[in-house]
């Protein structure tokens, strides 16, 4: 379905045309022709029907005027003189509560952050720590197999709260737990359509009703996407890439008005390395998803040989918009009270044993 204008005007496809016309209708100066001027609100179905009918009759829809007006009202605009006032040292990101972890990892508002790693590497632990440390509210979409680790979360919250709160069990800790909204895989989010509906309809509604939400966690997106597309077929991979881009666009649109950070956990898949005749772990969801995220951190668990400083796990920056240089690592370990960073390794730093290691 395509809407065209004059030769100089912009050509939009049907969905874009409906979006622009809906914005114009909300501003109050466009109605589908044939409806009363003081009637009910224009719904998206009305706009779609109007567009389809105009095209079916062979008419041309010139969106020049709508686009010009749409632009003047809806584009978000700043200049650097306005920005100078905004840079007052406020931190635009969510933190883990541990100094070394925070120096390397961060979940920034308005951006999509990804934690990828093999199973058992510690992605869920880091996400739970982020949720426990969040002073605002959190939405946690849990799609991995198994139940949501409530007891683990309770342990982390208990480690954060003051000791005198232990004498009254239930007050402060349950208040912290009440700030986390959990969506389970087996109840609500099971297929792609569910995930779509969650992001398009339910998440914006929730953000409108609970404006204290500062964090949205999806653990993990691949568990929903993988069963639906066959990796062996090229055209399905193309459709999957397009679906992932559309989902990223919807996620960003949902967090448009308020500062919310989105963090996604991503498992790995394996790619055969012809050079070394072995398999290498690679973030799942393909090459397209790497363009959807703003920051990607790789979580690794060294089995067997201990890592630097005795810690067996590390998180490495693969790329991060506005964060530390790629290659920066923080070694951490996980115990009963949460995740603790042990050592931060910057790329090219000389270590005690004399080697310059990344």
């Amino acid at each position, binding site marked *: 379905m395509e809407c065209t204008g004059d030769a100089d005007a*912009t050509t939009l496809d049907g969905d874009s045309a409906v979006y622009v016309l809906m914005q114009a209708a909300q501003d109050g100066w466009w109605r589908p022709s044939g409806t009363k001027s003081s009637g009910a609100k224009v719904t998206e179905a009305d706009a779609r029907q109007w567009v389809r009918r105009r095209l079916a009759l062979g008419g041309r829809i010139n969106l020049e005027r709508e686009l010009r007006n749409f632009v003047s009202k809806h584009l978000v*605009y*700043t200049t650097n003189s306005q920005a100078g006032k905004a840079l007052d040292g406020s931190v635009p990101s969510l933190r883990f509560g541990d100094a070394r972890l925070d120096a390397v990892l961060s979940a920034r508002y308005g951006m999509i952050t990804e934690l990828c790693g093999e199973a058992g590497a510690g992605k869920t632990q880091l996400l739970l720590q982020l949720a426990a440390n969040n002073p605002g509210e959190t939405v946690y979409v849990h799609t991995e197999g198994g139940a949501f680790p409530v007891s683990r979360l309770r342990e982390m919250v208990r480690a954060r709260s003051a000791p005198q709160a232990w004498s009254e069990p239930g007050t402060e800790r349950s208040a912290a737990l009440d700030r986390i909204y959990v969506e389970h895989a087996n109840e609500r989010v099971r297929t792609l359509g569910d995930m779509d509906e969650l992001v398009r309809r339910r998440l914006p509604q929730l953000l409108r009703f609970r404006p204290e939400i500062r964090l949205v966690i999806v653990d993990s997106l691949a568990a929903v996407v993988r069963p639906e597309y066959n990796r062996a077929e090229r055209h399905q991979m193309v459709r999957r890439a397009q679906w992932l881009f*559309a989902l990223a666009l919807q996620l960003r649109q949902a967090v448009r008005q308020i500062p919310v950070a989105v963090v996604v956990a991503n498992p790995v898949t394996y790619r055969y390395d012809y*050079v070394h005749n072995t398999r290498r772990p690679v973030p799942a969801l393909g090459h397209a998803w790497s363009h959807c995220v703003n920051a990607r951190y790789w979580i690794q668990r060294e089995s067997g040989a201990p890592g630097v400083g005795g810690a067996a796990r590390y998180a490495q920056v693969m790329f991060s918009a506005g964060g530390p240089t790629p290659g920066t690592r923080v070694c951490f370990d996980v115990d009963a009270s949460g995740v603790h960073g042990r050592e931060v390794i910057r790329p090219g730093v000389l270590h005690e044993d004399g080697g310059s290691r990344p």
Partner: protein
Amino acid sequence: MTDLYHIPGAWSLIYREDGKPDIRRHVSEQQQHASETDSTLPPSHPLRQVSLGTPELNTLLGGAGIPCGSLTELWGHAGAGKTRIGIQACIEAVRDGQSAAVYIDTEGGFSWERWQQWGGGHTPPDALHVYRVWSLAELLAARYVVEEVVMAARTGTVRLVVLDSVAFPFRAHAAVSPRTLLTFAAQWQRLAYTHNVAVLMVNHSTIGGEHPGRLRYTPALGPLWQHVCAHRIYVAPGYARVTQSALCPEPDAAPMRPTQASLDERSPAHHAAAATPSFRGSLAA
């Protein structure tokens, strides 16, 4: 050699009085009124080119940066540094105090912390205009805004427009028709030529297989988009390379120019990338 001066906007290779070759562009009267560009200016004149931030990057297209009046594309993988080059080009463009720059952000990669981190602290106020675009309709509509900004010229002439990730809204939209893509491209080409601004578009990379056994990457947005941008630069962490440009006739032989990222922390970043077995997946393959 045919004289192409009668075609507005055509580049011609001519020989100066001292025998050296030079590239000149035929400038129409409208463009001259709009931008006061003299066609006898050498190509390395600051009014003809926009710097990209480091001298190594500027020599990629043989001069002082990317040429004004045409579209240049930066493509590469995620995290390669495309947004960084875009922001640094904006910093350079507004540095002299009489120029303005427009930054259209689609993915949220622009932040004022990054602007200040890379030396943008001393720019005059209102020299940089930042627009945050959230959908395809807004991206298509942004052209009108930019045109108004360019014509109004409140704080100096607009020298540079950066469209960060022109690929993201197009790829997120189902079944964008080729007509939409090409109309979009034609409108930006007209804007760039008429007002003599340098337009820098940031594109993604995607898998375009030529060899079945090994992955090959091409710029995203399909085979139609190849013909849109006059100059294409591939960006990787640590270097940039021209893949397609009339100013660089043999792109495969062009040497790798290091970007500022590699100048900051030179070989350790490379070693970090190579030593980690899972870094970026199959890119090192």
